[in-house]
């Protein structure tokens, strides 16, 4: 159903193959959050992966001792903005899962502050996701998810859980916080999987 709106000509016509449908380029870094920004000290920070057989834990120093990747990627927010060529540093989920054995295929990411988001495990592996702690050469700001956030750039950015504290493996896909509150269970920007 698309029709022309009288009098609207629009502005940008520059076509960029990196821009998914319905998205607009921005140069700043807008914020989408449901509540206050939690204050998390790296001295207290911990990252866990819970599977059917137990819990794997890393504190901040152990995490920083892991192999660190430089990531150059585009990010796409469900609220219609995209940012191209963003620079991150973080630990690949491939690295974290090297020591983790699990038959469970779905993941619920949990954050400090209580928020959750769900992602299938195969969408986090093979160089598709990181736990990032640096943006543009600086430690990640608390309002953008610092000290560390999930980075899953091929999905809408609410899947890149801010203030991430751990992953809980699940037998079945279940909706997280944003997904229960109106956002799509999967969230592929190229298919415009924005809402229920």
């Amino acid at each position, binding site marked *: *159903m*698309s*029709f*022309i*709106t*009288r*009098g*609207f*000509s*629009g*502005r*940008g*016509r520059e076509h960029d193959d990196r821009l998914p449908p*319905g998205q*607009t380029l*921005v140069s*700043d870094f*807008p*914020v*989408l*959050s*449901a*509540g*206050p*920004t*939690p204050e998390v000290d790296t001295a207290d920070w911990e990252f*866990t992966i*819970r599977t059917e057989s137990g819990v794997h834990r890393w504190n901040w120093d152990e995490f920083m001792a892991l192999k660190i990747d430089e990531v150059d990627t585009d990010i796409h*927010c469900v*609220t*219609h*903005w995209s940012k191209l060529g963003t620079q991150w540093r973080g630990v690949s989920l491939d690295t974290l899962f090297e020591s983790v054995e699990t038959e469970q295929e779905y993941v619920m990411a*949990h954050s400090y*502050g*209580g*928020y*959750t988001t769900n992602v299938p495990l195969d969408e986090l592996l093979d160089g598709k996701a990181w736990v990032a702690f640096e943006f543009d050469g600086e430690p990640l700001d608390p*309002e953008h998810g610092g000290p560390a956030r999930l980075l899953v750039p091929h999905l809408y950015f609410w899947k890149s859980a801010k203030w991430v*504290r*751990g992953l*809980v493996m699940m037998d079945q896909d279940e909706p997280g*916080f944003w997904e*229960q*509150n*109106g956002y799509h269970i999967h969230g592929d920007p190229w298919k415009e999987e924005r*809402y*229920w």
Partner: protein
Amino acid sequence: MSDATTSQVMALGAAVESVPRSGWHAATVGAVHRETPNASRLELDVEGWPGNAAGQHLDVRLTAPDGYSATRSYSIASSGASTRVVLAVDKLPDGEVSPYLVDDVRAGDMLEVHGPLGAFFVWAPAAETGDDRPVQLIAGGSGVVPLFAMAQAHADADDPTPFRLLYSVRTPDDVYFSEELRGLSDASAPLRLDLVYTRRTPDGWPTPAGRITREALEAAVIPAADRPRVYVCGSTGFVERVADWLVGFGHDPRSVRTERYGGM
């Protein structure tokens, strides 16, 4: 996960309310008028609109003759079953969609909307939710739009929940819904309204113009001891500052819901 985290997740999950399903709809502009020197109020007649909860938003899509389209999200100033949906749009200096909606659109024009959207930053009467804790609304500039919808819904429902709105705005000319807000203050389920002017005050105003301070915020909101539900909407900077202070005053972070305008 610790027990504390689990209970937090459950508390957040329990807040999910049932809202109509979203979809694309054709909308006709029924009326448009100037809200402030920089903003317009649009009343849209939306075919097949399923109604919306107070605080929800929608996407507006505009399509140019060559097929180029642009989509933006806007908060809804109205709520309930009506297919007439009210928006109040602030013109962004470098905007693409908002200048059209504020300056160019006229009654009879057609555009597309997708919604209603969002199930978290919403308010419903205590009779529906069973939650009768007091409600504190805190608006920065055009962030008042979804909060006005909540205050109006509160009055329409004659809801007994205490309601208070703190509204930070540049000048007296920039106040959205000024007549309606005055009316709500006199309603049988009254709204207590506190205005803060950041650039210019009305004549004889007791405090000078300026950004709200931590002390002024604490004095103008329902105290943490009364366990209010708090809704904060505005620019990212405003929301970050206010929400951090609220947590500092002892408000439970789970009772503070925020909506931030990104800056595009």
